[in-house]
């Protein structure tokens, strides 16, 4: 994979210099979270079609800047752009895969899923209002569990990250004090706690600090067997973070009412829905200066929608439900046009 990456960077430089339409090499840049699945898809796609994708995982912020500047065929972001921002830059966006954020902790003797938390409690913990694991509020939620008399050490991401965006958006939804005093973004002014760099940085700090709580991507929590908490969802049920719970969140969401696919899958209805779920997005120009290149990109993602689900699942991402994919295909036809107004790509 590293070799593909190095090659990708090299080819991208060459491709940037020569703007001639070469044997279909797509360029994209942005979010790091979906990079493993995009690379894997690209590898398989190249094997079957010969068309290559050069994806540079430079971060969502970088992806947005690059597509706005028009240096890449598509940008990728973990944070959906608001409809007005899309409009301003002549962009459209669509989701590709989903993932979720999972609270993990270091409590000796506790098994994964043994502790239950509500969204409000999570906000109180990250605000520094709930300071100990045997806080009366936590004891009330966890009846029958001997909550330890241990201070809670809060761990958050230190680097700007879509994971933090999703997490802080959720806390803002569940606690007015969080929305008013901290807010939601890739990086925020954390009231308390330590910052770890990346998922592994957060996990390492949590592992090394008894009583610590942190949050990581679902794939990371699963692959490393971290002790996660059950979260209360919108209908009041405590659920575990599983692929099924993320799919339930996506199924419960009403994408038809989300203009420009601006939808965070937070706190969705559905008995089994995991409350901190989110999709990652692709950004493209609505008016394609080079329709052939635009068509190649759409063809690739259409191919990924059709045949890439198994790959996504094997990498612990959650594929989009079929109705959402259908909506995205409709949006491609309706929104992505060449300079003379022709449809660039229609899925067959």
């Amino acid at each position, binding site marked *: 994979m590293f070799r593909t990456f190095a090659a990708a960077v090299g080819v991208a430089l060459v491709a940037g210099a020569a703007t001639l339409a070469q044997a279909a090499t797509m360029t994209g840049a942005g979010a790091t979270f979906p990079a493993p699945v995009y690379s894997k898809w690209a590898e398989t796609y190249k094997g079957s079609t010969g068309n290559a994708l050069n994806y540079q995982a430079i971060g969502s912020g970088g992806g947005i800047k690059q597509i706005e500047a028009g240096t890449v065929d598509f940008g990728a972001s973990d944070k959906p752009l608001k409809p007005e921002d899309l409009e301003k830059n002549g962009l459209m966006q669509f989701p590709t895969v989903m993932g979720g954020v999972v609270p993990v902790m270091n409590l000796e003797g506790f098994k994964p899923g043994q502790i239950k938390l509500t969204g409000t409690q999570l906000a109180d913990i990250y605000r520094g209002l709930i300071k100990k694991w045997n806080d009366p509020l936590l004891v009330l939620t966890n009846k029958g569990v001997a909550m330890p008399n241990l201070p809670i050490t809060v761990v958050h991401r*230190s*680097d700007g*990250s879509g994971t933090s965006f999703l997490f802080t958006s959720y806390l803002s939804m569940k606690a007015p004090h969080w929305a008013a005093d901290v807010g939601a*973004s890739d*990086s925020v002014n954390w009231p308390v706690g*330590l*910052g770890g*760099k990346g998922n592994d940085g957060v996990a390492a700090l949590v592992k090394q*600090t008894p009583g610590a709580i942190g949050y990581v991507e679902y794939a990371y929590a699963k692959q490393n067997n971290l002790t996660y908490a059950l979260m209360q969802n919108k209908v009041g049920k405590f659920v575990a973070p599983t692929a099924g719970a993320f799919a339930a969140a996506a199924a419960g969401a009403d994408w038809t009412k989300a203009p420009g696919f601006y939808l965070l899958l937070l706190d969705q209805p559905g008995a089994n829905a995991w409350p901190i779920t989110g999709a990652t997005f692709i950004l493209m120009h609505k008016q394609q200066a080079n329709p052939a290149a635009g068509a190649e990109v759409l063809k690739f993602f259409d191919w990924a929608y059709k045949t890439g689900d198994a790959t996504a699942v094997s990498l612990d991402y959650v594929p989009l439900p079929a109705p959402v994919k259908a909506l995205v295909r409709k949006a491609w036809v309706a929104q992505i046009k060449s300079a003379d107004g022709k449809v660039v790509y229609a899925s067959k």
Partner: protein
Amino acid sequence: MTAVADSPETGPSRTAKGAVFDRGFEYLCFAAATLLLTALGGLIISLAIGGWPAFAKFGPAFFVTSTWDPVGEVYGASGAIVGTLVSSALALVFALPLAMGVAIFLVELCPVPLRRPIGTAVELLAGIPSIVYGMWGLFVFAPWFAKHIQLPIMGAAPPGSLWETITTGIPNGTGILAASAILAIMILPFIAATLRELLLTIPPAVRESAYGLGSTTFEVIRKVSLPYVRTGTVGAVMLGLGRALGETMAVTFIIGNSHGFPTSIFASGSTIASTIANEFAEATSDMHTAALIALGLVLFIITFAVLALARLLIGREAYK
């Protein structure tokens, strides 16, 4: 030294071709030198332009407040500036005595067969990439540091004392002091290698005379060797400091990365370099980017000031 023998005027006459070549060579060297200067100037100007929105909006408050809030678009850099200065200064405090010990041992006391292996080992330390220090720091050093240094110090603090105030923190081995310790290991080889070279420049006659007068080894080192290399030592220290100030990856891993003013040596903090590394890739708003670039300019100025100070000190000593 008087060099007359082969000066161009008196030597064999040069061909016209040779003269043209020489002129071309001169220009080439001049271009190389000015290119670097121009690049440096361009760097400063682009940092200043990029950071201007932040300087213009926050004014002096950018330097004296410590709120760093990307959501509310309020940026104050004093936490990062203080974190940078404190972690680097502490690193120097740890590294300098050690480096002196290493250099003196290698030059004055070390048995000849051991000289090479120890010297090479110290130089190897300089070759380890900083990200490796970061990972090692977080996964190996931090737990050890927590258990054997942080907890005993915190435990020994009398309640309510100043000692307790400056040693409060989360006992997991991350924070300002741990970052300083890692930095100290990283800058040690640079300082030690420079000091060793300096000590080797002392003419043997000087040292031998001191021994001849009946001095002990310690007296020779303290009264003869160290004063002899005092000027260069300042340079070595500044070299290490310059490196510590700008160190990014290793510090990011272990300093704890919380904005705001560090209140104790075990508190988590941030440095200018770690803040930029953490946030630049995902900074989407213009003001966030501007604030980070402004931070870059501040770091540039601090590093520049350190180097200028070093020049000044060395210059003053040299003319004495």
